[in-house]
């Protein structure tokens, strides 16, 4: 319990202090710390963010506890950093002692925030994996799909990630589960409408 509290306070510290972190730490040191087991509260992905080129938020998912205020601040800061990066640069940005792995698909930026010593390429491919699943579901997905069906993007993300960890690496399985959910919703709807029809009929 204490450890987890400590963890919170660290997060707060990063987010509250106004000064931008000037340090990027020699990674070697961090590795050493991790291996000595003192930071065992590691998380994979801290949050997922979808931002449009205009800086509009299309999806947010927070796996670490951020308050509303912090969330707004993070989004504002990160969209500043990421949207201003030119093409042909690498897909990683160092930010407040974390790393943000991002990838641009058409007008949308998919961003995931991870710890310094996580495997960046692995996360980059999680992003692509997610995009492929969205693509398969919507049939050549575009930003408009994600605007009008943002709830679907949430459903799919929940089938892909839990607690900031990848839960399913098979596109087929995810597609199957989402389809099952959809049919559950559909059948409930039909049921409801048929019942209301019956009632409507009966009360006529």
């Amino acid at each position, binding site marked *: 319990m204490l450890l987890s509290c400590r963890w919170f306070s660290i997060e707060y510290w990063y987010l509250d202090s106004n000064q931008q972190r000037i340090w990027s730490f020699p990674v070697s040191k961090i*590795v050493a710390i991790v291996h000595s087991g003192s930071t065992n509260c590691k998380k994979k992905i801290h949050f997922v963010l979808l931002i449009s080129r205009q800086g509009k938020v299309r999806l947010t998912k927070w796996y670490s506890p951020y308050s509303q205020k912090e969330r707004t601040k993070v989004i504002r800061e990160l969209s500043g950093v990421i949207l201003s990066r030119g093409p042909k640069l690498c*897909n990683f940005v160092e930010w407040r002692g974390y790393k943000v792995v991002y990838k641009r698909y058409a007008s949308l930026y998919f961003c995931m925030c991870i710890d310094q010593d996580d495997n960046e390429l692995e996360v980059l491919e999680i992003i692509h994996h997610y995009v492929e699943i969205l693509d398969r579901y919507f049939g050549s997905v575009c930003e408009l799909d994600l605007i009008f069906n943002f709830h679907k993007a949430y459903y799919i993300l929940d089938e892909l990630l839990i607690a900031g960890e990848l839960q399913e690496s098979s596109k087929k399985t995810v597609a199957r589960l989402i389809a099952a959910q959809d049919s559950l919703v559909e059948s409930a709807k039909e049921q409801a409408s048929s019942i209301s029809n019956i009632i409507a009929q009966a009360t006529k």
Partner: protein
Amino acid sequence: MALSGMRGLSVFISDIRNCPNKDQERLRVDKELGNIRTRFKNEKGLTPYEKKKYVWKMLYIYMLGYDVDFGHMEAVSLISAPKYPEKQVGYIVTSSLLNENHDFLRLAINTVRNDIIGRNETFQCLALTMVGNIGGREFAESLAADVQKLLISSSCRPLVRKKAALCLLRLYRKNPDVVNIDGWVDRMAQLLDERDIGVLTSSMSLLVALVSNNHEAYWSCLPKCVKVLERLARNQDIPQEYTYYGIPSPWLQVKAMRALQYFPTIEDPNCRRSLFEVLQRILMGTDVVKNVNKNNAAHAVLFEALALVMHLDAEKEMMSQCVALLGKFIAVREPNIRYLGLENMTRMLMVTDVQDSIKRHQAQIITSLKDPDISIRRRALDLLYGMCDISNAKDIVEELLQYLSTADFAMREELSLKAAILAEKFAPDLSWYVDVILQLIDKAGDFVSDDIWFRVVQFVTNNEDLQPYAAAKAREYLDKPAIHETMVKVSAYLLGEFSHLLARRPGCSPKEIFIIIHEKLPTVSTSTIPILLSTYAKILMHTQPPDPELQNQIWAIFNKYESCIDAEIQQRAVEYFALSRKGAAVMDILAEMPKFPERQSALIKKAEVAEVDSADQSAIKLRAQQQTSNALVVTDQHSANGPPPTVPAVGPLTLVKVPSTSGNAEHTSEGQALTQPNGTLTKIDPQTPSEDLLGDLLGPLAIEGPPGAAVQPQQNAVSEVGGVPSAVDGAAIVPVGEYSNSVQPIGNINERFYALCLKDSGVLYEDPYIQIGIKAEWRAQHGHLVLFLGNKNTSPLDSVQALVLPPAHLKMELSLVPETIPPRAQVQCPLEVLNLRPSRDVAVLDFSYKFGECEASPSSSSEQISSAYISVCRRVLSSMEISFRPPLKLQEVVRGVRPLPLAEMANLFNSFRLMICPGLDPNPNNLVASTTFYSESTRAMLCLIRIETDPADRTQLRMTVASGDPMLTFELKEFMKEQLVSIPTAPHGPTAPPTPPVAQVAQPTSPVKALTDPGAMLAAEWSFEDFGLVTRKKSVNGSFLVLVMDGQSLASFRPNNKAEPNK
């Protein structure tokens, strides 16, 4: 495509999209929020479908950045809806809107639990997903057991079990104390045999979390991980849907290798062999391919394999293979790979023997410093910083300096700090170091923190050879048209101190220097003006013979600032003005600053602290950090007494203390001024300067510090007279409150400290987790101490930190303390001590550690590092012809002394290495002892002590101390007083022989207690034995009696009778 449209929602989204500007959008949103509010209020008319729609709308509004707190309750309440569509929305929106700290979540716990233990698989999935994403402590408490059951249940389908695994992972990570994982070793091993890759992936994540907390328990999972890895690498039995661009689940491969990195080694040879086969295959078999995703996935696996190889510290051949690969990566065009190449090369630096092969890539790395991508530039900078050593420092630092002028602002501070650290660490010669720092300030003044220029000032002050060079350089920079304020500060300081060394050079007459510095004054801020004023004062002082014109100019400036609104400036102006009218006397006061005590570079400390911050911002480190900021500024650990060092350069300003030589009272002040050579303007504070430092740092433990001298005697006196047991002492002084949330030490630290004052080895501190022992050896003024840190537990102590805060008179160097002390192990840390001059201040050991999962408990223990060598020398007595007069000889009547038989007092003296010289004094009630005190300033110094006791009243005595150094005499006298007044031994019954009182002794205040004193008898015997000596001495020294003593810091003396070198 099954898009179940909600028309209302779509319309709303379209409306928002059609808003031409932000104001319109806000209007539309407000209207919608109003609508939602009223609908929620009259809940009766709300169909489940409508409720669902409004909750979705709320989430959308929330994403736009508006506040929807009022609707949290509605979202949470949907969780308990009976039907799937509503429940689903409830779960998803709740987990997106709330975080684990929201109180509303508590309302849902019961529903969530019912869903988890219920039979409905889809409900189970929804509940597990939400708990996995935002589950907090209460969820862990009420759900962990149920989730564990689901994970291992054979009746559950994979889709539930994989969610259960990750849900459990979340609960365990957040609250490892709540989730009971007993017996999970076998279950984890079973889970790793799982065929379903989805469940296996989730279980592997769970394993990583478990192993990272306690790798020892999960040994049995190690071969299973290797097996999983083999299965993937060979692509055996992997369903097509789990291959990603032809690579069998790269994510699972990465995870398995990550888990393996938490085991220290792999002992089983078979297992090791097959793992290395797999790794070899990955290292060799990964080629750059056209398809970006395939390439990324393959390299994700490759980099993880590299990390694992480094961790296992494999054979040399494999290592050099890795370095070769990385060398290739840092030269490719693909930015991601180049970035990771640099990053991993930095990690590689930790591995021994590869530094040289990394150095071969230096040119390529420097190219990356100019990469258009800041992420890559950062990595390159980090790598250059890490690989820098004496051989390439010059190249690298110059490269960094060159880059500094073009670097982007985001990197400049880091860049300049790193350049400064490297320059200091690896400077081939000191003038180069000065050059580098001045260039740094010149090029990136805004980004050079104060620490950097403080450090260069320190260096220059401490190295005389460097002073003319630095002053000349500073002079050159002042010629530049526009210079940064920091440059003004540093050059003003350097020129103030050392410009007289340049006097003969052209353009360096005091007047010219004054003019050029004064030109800058209108451009600087208030923090710089005080420094300039000091510089003027110093210039004035160095102008001999005085130049009236210059003098008038400077006085006019002082006059002008006498009414300045800034207190610091005003004070300086007033004081300098007054001082500078004193003529030649100013020479003493404004003399050059004394050397700074050597200490670890604050820059490096800062870097270390900053590094630690990333992982651990514990209180103790914060404290250390605060301390560093003072440390550099202030040459001594004074502070709180003087004004807070807002203007860091106040330190240097200080006036050198005025040597005072007459009278006892003067002495007191001198002793204190000495320990505080850096306060502001000769303000002599009657309090001991280090009190605050110790008080702040150590709280309860500070009692060993000098303040004890002030407090304890009275306390003891009271307790003794009143007959209160002496054990009260410790308790009385320790503020109990401060202890409450730290580990309780075993035994009285105070007593241990005193015991150690009398012995060369023993236990300094002990608590349930750790024992700190100490052993000391002294040779003249050099001490070699060893700290023994013993872990008393079966689990390792982490984050061990030890910091020695030496008093001004001791130079101490503590060797590196390991971060972790293994279970039941003892670590030895040598500590070198050099005594500079006499003083009673003690050093303080600030020690902290973290035990297991319990909170980091900074248990600081104070420690004496005392020092004293006394080599007894009777023969020295022949040198007694020197006539001792105050301040070399001091005499004082001490009252309130703990009654002690003479023999015991003699033993006490012996244990302080004050050699008793029996028989020197014909009066059997007197003790005479001698010693030699060693320190840098005094060298070997003979000290003599004579104690005259009153047999009628043992609570008082007269003490006479003499030595060749006034300060030593004073400190020794004070020390003896402290010791005699407060020795923590069990009090013996006060006894006194019936001999007549010594004439000088003041009137006894307490009744005579007993009539016999074996100690006195014994002493009398001794004196008769050595009577010849006594008479001889008497003839030399008249009636004055002598005790020779040594003891350097007088802080405490340690006995070493057998090893006593009879010099």
